[in-house]
C-alpha cells in the first residue's frame, strides 16, 4: 500500500519505521534536514503540505492512506481537506495537537480518523495508575 506521511517529526518517523517493511512509505516535510537522513529507507520529499504542487511531486493521487502529522492543527485540517476533497484519498488520519480542537477533526473537514495524542496518553496513564493501585 502507498502511504504518505506529512510531517517528519518523532511520530511521523516512528510510524514510517513501523510500516516500511510491508508498505511503500513516502514522507513530506518542509525541512530538508528532517527527511534527508531517511532517503535510503523511504521516498522523501521536501515541501509544504498545503501546496498542491508540493503534494503532486509525491504522486499523492496514488496514495491509499495519508497521515497528516504537523504540529499545527489548522495546517493539519487544511491538508486533510485538500487530501479528501481534491485528491479523494480513501483514508486520511490527522494528528490533533490541542485536545480542545478535537471537535473539528471530522469527516466533514476531511479527517477520517483523528489521533488525539493527549487523550491517548491520558487513557494509558490512567490505566497504568489503576493497575498500580490494584493490590
Amino acid at each position, binding site marked *: 500500500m502507498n502511504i504518505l506521511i506529512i510531517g517528519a517529526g518523532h511520530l511521523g518517523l516512528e510510524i514510517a519505521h513501523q510500516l516500511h517493511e510491508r508498505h511503500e512509505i513516502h514522507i513530506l516535510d518542509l525541512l530538508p534536514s528532517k527527511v534527508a537522513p531517511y532517503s535510503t529507507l523511504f521516498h522523501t520529499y521536501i515541501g509544504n503540505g498545503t501546496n498542491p504542487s508540493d503534494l503532486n511531486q509525491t504522486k499523492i493521487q496514488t496514495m491509499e492512506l495519508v497521515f497528516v502529522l504537523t504540529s499545527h492543527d489548522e495546517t493539519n485540517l487544511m491538508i486533510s481537506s485538500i487530501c479528501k476533497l481534491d485528491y479523494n484519498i480513501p483514508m486520511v488520519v490527522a494528528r490533533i495537537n490541542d485536545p*480542545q480542537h478535537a471537535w473539528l477533526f471530522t469527516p*466533514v473537514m476531511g479527517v477520517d480518523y483523528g489521533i488525539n495524542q493527549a487523550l491517548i496518553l491520558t487513557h494509558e496513564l490512567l490505566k497504568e495508575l489503576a493497575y498500580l493501585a490494584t493490590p
Partner: protein
Amino acid sequence: MKIVIFGCGRSGKGLFLTLFKQNHDVSIIDDDESNLLPLQSYQQVFFNSYLVESLWDTLRIHECDAIIACTKSDEMNAIIARAAKTMYHVPKTIAFIQHPDKVHLYEHLGVQTISTTDWGIKRAIHMLSYNHLQTLYTLGDNELQILRIPVLNDWVHQTIDAFEHNEPFTIIAIERKNHTFIPLQGTILEEQDILYIIIEDCNRQRIETFIKES
C-alpha cells in the same frame, strides 16, 4: 445582522468599528489579549483561542448571518470559514488570505476569500497605469467596480446613450454643479460633469483604452 469577526488586527478592528456603527450585532475575538486593548470599552470582545468549541457555542455561531476570518494565518482563516460553513451552516463566511497563490485552492474547498495582497496589487497597478479613473467601490472579489470619471471634452454635448450602446459600462450617476442624479435615456453630458460608472473588472483595460482614445 449577527456577525462574528475572528482576528483583531487592523482589518478586524476596522471591520468591527464600522459594523458596530451600522448597528449590526457584531462580536470580535483574538487569541492575543494586547490586540483587543483598543476595543476594551466594547462588550462584544473576546480573548480566546480561535478553534475552541465552547467559544463557538458562547458566540452562538450557529445563529450568525456571517463570519469574517482575518487572523494572521491564512490556514487559520480558511479553517474557521470552512468549519463555520460546513459544521454551523453560517450563510456567509469570508476568509482573508494574504498569499495570492492559495486563493484558488481555498475557493475550491468552498471558502469565499478576500486576497488582501492580490487586491492591493491590482489597485496599485490600476493607479499606476491610468490615473484618470478613480475606483470608488468594488463588489465581490473586485469583480465589479464603481468608477469616478471627469467628463472628457470629446464627450460634452453627447447623450449617454451613445456610450452605453457601444461600451461595456453603465453610467449610474452624474454629478453636476453640486447635484448628483441618476441619468435618464437621452441625458446630455455637460462640461465639468463627473460620471459614476459601473464596470466588470475584465473590461477595465478596454475602458481605459476607450478613454485614452477619446
